[in-house]
């Protein structure tokens, strides 16, 4: 149900708008020097003379990172550049592991199949949009991987996946290879539709937190039966029985069976302490685990319970009061849960928020006194562990993917600006090149607009008359700042 409104009506024909990302992607991705590099060949790169914040083993002053075949080959103080290596001189700058956003909705054509309360049959992978400009914007904010989630319109939502922000690559190249797939659950106000209703549609079950619990229990009861049907079938096949008709596949229950088998992670949207504990109880009843609790703004109230259940918590930095279930949200949440032994990450749930997750993590030092390292982990190693990709990313260690973000200041400051972002040892974002390409983009844009203007001046072809809506309700006029919270209240993703 997340709807993003354009801030104002666009006069430009849709085709024009659709064209832009294409030529932008071409221009941004292939800045002059690198145009010759084939997309899949990662160069040998040495980042030198820089402050390396490894996250796993401290900070190395005047350090270097050698990258080969897309992996980190060496980390240390004095590494000689191999012949032919591309050298990135980064003195006075700071390198951290690429930021991992554990709750994102970028690169998606749609995020909510809101018509049913269990929509586990739909999959975000089928609607990946590699041309979403937010991929590039988040990349420019140091984000290298993101957990692309279904929305929170239903108790059990769609299937989810982790991507790398490989801007310029086709959709098939976005998924994080080998990452465990997930499924979105949602508790509380959004699945019970407390804050909005769709005109003309009856109230949808569930409409209470009681019903949300029963919806999940009901779905897993079915999934258990379904699993048993298949298990029995496989047993009989294994025993040599012939001419058996296999059970009918159920695309809704299959992903839930994968949850029961531990092959699919549950990422559950939640706010209040009672619904958090409810989900842990249901999970226990059916024998599955919850991988991460998303938002989990009252997680600090039940931190011991979360720690005991070994469930990860992925929260906001300082959002509050946009809904009643966010009224007890406090900016100390991340620190309080961390101190009680919960694995915590800070996420964005919003393309713009993702561009400064480093800053959002920094707030946990002020609110609750996390150390610099602990704060940095909230957006690097911890989300990597939560998504089961920490063998590949999350720290700066030899053998890991060369997914890195380079800042001009300590990244835990509001004054830090990303200079370069690397994924798989390739520079996917380069601020200097971005700045240098702007004049060219403007020129090309002008050429296109002029061409369109010329076309518009030609006598207009009569378009078939569109049906006018009977009533045209006043649309939300986002004349003021369309904040993330405002979008949230629209029945949002969060």
């Amino acid at each position, binding site marked *: 149900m997340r709807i993003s409104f354009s801030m*104002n009506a666009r006069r430009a024909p849709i085709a024009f708008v659709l064209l832009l990302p294409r030529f932008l992607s071409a221009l941004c991705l292939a800045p002059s020097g690198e145009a010759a590099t084939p997309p899949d060949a990662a160069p040998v790169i040495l980042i030198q003379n820089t402050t390396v914040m490894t996250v796993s083993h401290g900070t190395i002053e005047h350090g270097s990172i050698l990258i080969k075949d897309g992996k980190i080959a060496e980390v240390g103080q004095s590494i000689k550049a191999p012949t032919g290596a591309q050298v990135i001189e980064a003195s006075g700058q700071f390198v951290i592991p690429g930021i991992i956003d554990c709750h994102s909705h970028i690169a998606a054509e749609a995020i909510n199949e809101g018509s049913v309360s269990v929509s586990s049959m739909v999959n975000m992978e089928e609607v990946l949009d590699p041309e979403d400009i937010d991929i590039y914007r988040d990349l420019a904010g140091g984000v290298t991987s993101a957990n692309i989630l279904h929305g929170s319109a239903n108790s059990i939502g769609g299937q989810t996946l982790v991507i790398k922000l490989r801007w310029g690559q086709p959709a098939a190249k976005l998924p994080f290879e080998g990452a465990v797939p997930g499924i979105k659950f949602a508790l509380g106000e959004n699945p019970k539709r407390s804050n909005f209703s769709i*005109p003309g549609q009856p109230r949808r079950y569930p409409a209470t937190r009681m019903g949300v619990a029963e919806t999940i229990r009901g779905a897993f009861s079915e999934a258990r039966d379904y699993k048993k049907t298949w298990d029995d079938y496989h047993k009989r096949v294994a025993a040599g029985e012939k001419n058996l008709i296999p059970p009918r596949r159920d695309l809704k229950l299959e992903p839930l069976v994968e949850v029961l088998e531990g092959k699919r992670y549950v990422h559950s949207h939640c706010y209040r302490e009672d619904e958090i504990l409810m989900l842990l109880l249901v999970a226990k009843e059916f024998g599955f685990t919850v991988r991460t609790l998303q938002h989990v703004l009252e997680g600090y109230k039940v931190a011991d319970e979360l720690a005991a259940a070994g469930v990860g918590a992925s929260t906001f930095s300082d959002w509050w009061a946009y809904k009643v279930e966010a009224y007890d949200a*406090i900016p*100390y949440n991340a620190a*309080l849960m961390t101190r009680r032994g919960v694995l915590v990450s800070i996420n964005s749930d919003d393309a713009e928020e993702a561009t400064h997750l480093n800053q959002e993590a920094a707030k946990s030092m*002020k609110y609750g006194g996390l150390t610099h390292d602990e704060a940095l982990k909230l957006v690097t190693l911890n989300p990597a562990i939560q998504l089961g990709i920490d063998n590949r990313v999350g720290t700066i260690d030899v053998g890991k993917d060369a997914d890195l973000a380079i800042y001009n200041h300590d990244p835990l400051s509001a004054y830090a600006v990303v200079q370069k972002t690397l994924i798989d040892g390739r520079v996917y974002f380069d601020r200097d090149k*971005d700045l240098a390409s702007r004049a060219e983009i403007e020129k090309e844009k002008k050429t296109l607009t002029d061409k369109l203007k010329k076309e518009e001046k030609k006598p207009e072809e009569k378009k078939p008359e569109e049906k006018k809506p009977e009533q045209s309700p006043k649309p939300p006029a986002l004349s*003021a700042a369309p904040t993330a919270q405002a979008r949230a209240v*629209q029945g949002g993703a969060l």
Partner: protein
Amino acid sequence: MKRKRAARLGSPLYFFDFLCLVCLLAAPAAGAQIQAPSVYAITHAKIFTLAGSPIEDGTLVIRDGKIAAVGAAVEVPAGARVIDAKGLEVYPGLFDAVTQIGLSEVGAVGATVDATEAGNYNPDVVAATAISPSSEHLPVTRASGITEVLAVPASGGFDFGGSRGTLGGQASAIHLAGWTIDEMLIRKSAAMVVNWPQIQTQTFDFATFSRKEKPYSEAKQEYDKQVNELTDWIDRARHYAQAMEKGAVSKYDRDLKLEALAPVVRGELPVLVFANRARDIRNAVEFCDKQKLKMILAGGAEAYKVKDLLRSKNIPVILRPMLSSPPDEDDPYDRELTEPAELAAAGVKFAIASFDNSFARRLGQNAANAVAHGLAYDEALRAVTINPAQIFGLGSQIGTLEQGKIANIIVTDGDPLELTSDVRYLFIKGQLTSTQNKHQRLYEKYANRPKASN
């Protein structure tokens, strides 16, 4: 120096004293009469007056709610409560120039929101009327060093599906502390809100819950209709104001809406015009110019495109947060972040505001992000202190640390725009004011939860 006789807040004894005061401020006891001290001296601080260079080892004296003295060689008056601020920094409190603070408690719950009145023309409604002095947002926002805000009706939130009406009502400038709204008021009517009509070819239809496309000609007609209506309101207000002057308005034919617009047409009350697109801004400027209205632009996502116009007409801008997505997908990724630097270079006067209530505490963060993208640090600081004060005609009362101004002051452990800085002491109207809030209370409560036995 008479410091020996002065009560020292820095000493353990007076720290206890301070705690008591804090507790009293945090939880007012019924009937308890407390006599708050009226004279304070902040000593040994680095003082950023914003009216000259910083004072390295300075003293600031507060008396009867005002700044009595500030400088390097200022005497501590007898009987003053002394705050030894060695190692700390002193700044004017921050001013968030567009918020719904006090008007909206929980965004999604209509019963707690009084931000936007129904209907398109409500010039008579006044924010101060509906501001809740007990809102949890006040102390939470204070804790981030914000001492005063403009509470702006029809400026945000999603009441009425986001529809805000053209004449949204009067914005009130308030201190973020006070037992009653009267104690909080800086200026009850500080600006008249105008949501500039937009030409909308794309709309959202709630009946079908889907996007609708509208031909440009149709959208333009609707826009023209709205501008004509607004013109009509202003014309009628002008006639009404003339009639008022001549004493021709009797108590029987009094029109409260036109009466509210009288100061606007007289050029006494500025119009705070919300517009983001260059075309809308240009149209609004032309309108206000023609109608001789004193315009302040709010939003201004594309103000950079019309910066010369804004400069030549002396129209100040209240910029929406830098931490916003660029308006168009083909905009540079840092489009919003570089705008303050561009406006500053063009000589356009601007303030930075949160345009929110619960994100008000990101005010400093937004300003710092502008600095990271080319805005001079001093300019950023001014954009959240003296600039908004001056833009709303309050520059002689607040916004800098100068003798005679209202003592809205913060004492911090560092750069007030940086994420990790803390406000150690906060003064509003010369009173040491608690920064304790709901969030800290919950933090302390749950930090002290005994370990669960599981």
